[in-house]
């Protein structure tokens, strides 16, 4: 044994940034950013203080929600949201399937591939809210604009994941089918479809869930649904009705999430 000659101090070696100067520079950079960022937040503390009382009223409204006095508006909004969710998911998925196949490198010719991939890119990079603003401007207020928004958003989501899935399928099966002299349609039908079908169903259910959540938001810009009702309730400072709506949203999301995960397990 080396006995008493062993060192008596030890420091943990840095794990991420090994160079000392860089480490200090990064630390200083973070501090400077935080100072600047916090400095740029102008808070009207008097307004915030006034708000505390309202916040309390909101929490009370959340704890003692009022479902009844605005029930007509709430149920109308809910029906719009739910129907919008279902129709947009069905239409979105139906359009996603050909686009997804077209965006799969191993199935589609080059030019179709690029067209489909750019449709997906556009749909994914624009947010639901911004799309909704445009659709409301074009189609007028109401759930129809919301339906179009959600369908459009669904395409980007499902087609992308579907295309990625198809690109990852087991090529040997497709080869086997192709070697029997099958046409392109038959390859899609016998080799690709069985491999990606369970995933597609799972994704559609997942998207159904997302679309409901989004349907609660796009109403804020006039695209119908429960979001519009919520917006009105908050504008009128009716926090107990707003609390009721939020609780309903939470409950439906929970049921949808639980239900869709259960269904996905059941189907697989």
């Amino acid at each position: 044994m080396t006995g008493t000659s062993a060192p008596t101090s030890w420091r943990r070696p840095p794990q991420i940034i090994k160079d000392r100067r860089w480490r200090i520079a990064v630390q200083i950079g973070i501090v400077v950013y935080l100072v600047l960022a916090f400095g740029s937040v102008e808070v009207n503390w008097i307004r915030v203080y006034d708000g505390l009382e309202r916040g309390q009223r909101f929490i009370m409204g959340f704890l003692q929600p009022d479902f009844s006095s605005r029930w007509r508006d709430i149920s109308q909004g809910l029906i719009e949201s739910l129907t919008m969710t279902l129709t947009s998911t069905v239409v979105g998925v139906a359009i996603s399937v050909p686009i997804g196949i077209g965006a799969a490198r191993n199935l589609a010719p080059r030019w179709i591939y690029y067209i489909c991939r750019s449709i997906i890119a556009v749909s994914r990079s624009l947010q639901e809210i911004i799309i909704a603003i445009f659709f409301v401007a074009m189609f007028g207020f109401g759930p129809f604009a919301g339906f179009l928004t959600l369908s459009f958003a669904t395409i980007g989501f499902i087609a992308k994941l579907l295309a990625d899935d198809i690109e990852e399928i087991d090529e040997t099966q497709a080869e086997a089918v192709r070697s029997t002299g099958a046409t392109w349609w038959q390859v899609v039908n016998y080799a690709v479809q069985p491999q990606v079908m369970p995933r597609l169903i799972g994704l559609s259910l997942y998207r159904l869930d997302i679309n409901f959540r989004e349907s609660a938001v796009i109403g804020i810009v006039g695209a119908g649904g429960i979001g519009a009702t919520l917006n009105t309730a908050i504008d009128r400072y009716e926090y107990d009705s707003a609390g009721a709506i939020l609780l309903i949203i939470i409950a439906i999301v929970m049921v949808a999430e639980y239900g869709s995960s259960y269904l996905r397990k059941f189907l697989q």
Partner: protein
Amino acid sequence: MLTLDGLSKTYRTGDSALSDVTLSVPKGQIMGLIGPSGAGKSTLIRCINRLVEPTAGRILLNDVNLVGLGKSDLRRQRRRIGMIFQEYALVERLTVMENVLSGRLGYVPFWRSFLRKYPEFDIQRAYQLLDRVGLIDHADKRSDALSGGQRQRVGIARALAQDPELLLVDEPTASLDPKTSRQIMRLLTEVCAERGLPAIVNIHDVPLAQQFMQRIVGLRAGRVVFDGPPDRLKEDALTTIYGEEDWNTMRQGEEEQSQAEADARDRIAALAQ
């Protein structure tokens, strides 16, 4: 000295893992625990430091009964018991040094362990232990960068850092090749001898147990069915422990291993020439 008195464990499912185990391990003795899988070896070891809560019986470590201790008392007693695990159970993303120092966790307050500001004495000891197990140059490496044998050496250093009065060793060689297994077993017996430490070594490899243990206890279905020196462990005793069939398949495995070892020896000899 460790004394187990009527130790029993029944799991909530109703499975009885241990029934009425009574034995004692004197200072400096290395005791091997053998038995088929499911015999309760792992449960026995885990009952001693109460990672598994025993259902009945007493565990006396130098006259302190470990059963029924409260949380903070248990914590204080656990640091007297070092444990070495089958899959090393190092915290993979921490450095070797941190893993060794984690053996001191029971002794230092939270802020010291959080800031990694261990007392000088602890650090010096940790370096000495790393030197003892031959890993002093690896102190600042992350432990997932080490080989299996090296990781188990860190595991030994961590257990010794606790300054324990007893070592619990759970299948120390199960994930190692035969040669490394022997090195690890030799290291274990040496450090126990240096410190006069009693140890319970849970081991499935009978020849390895016979080679390194001073005493062997055979467990079957949660009961002690053999207790004696390794040279008394003959075929009939093994049949009692493992049952007819298992024992024969084990013997085959053993033959294979000894053949493989002879093979390896020949090759090394050939290389040396």
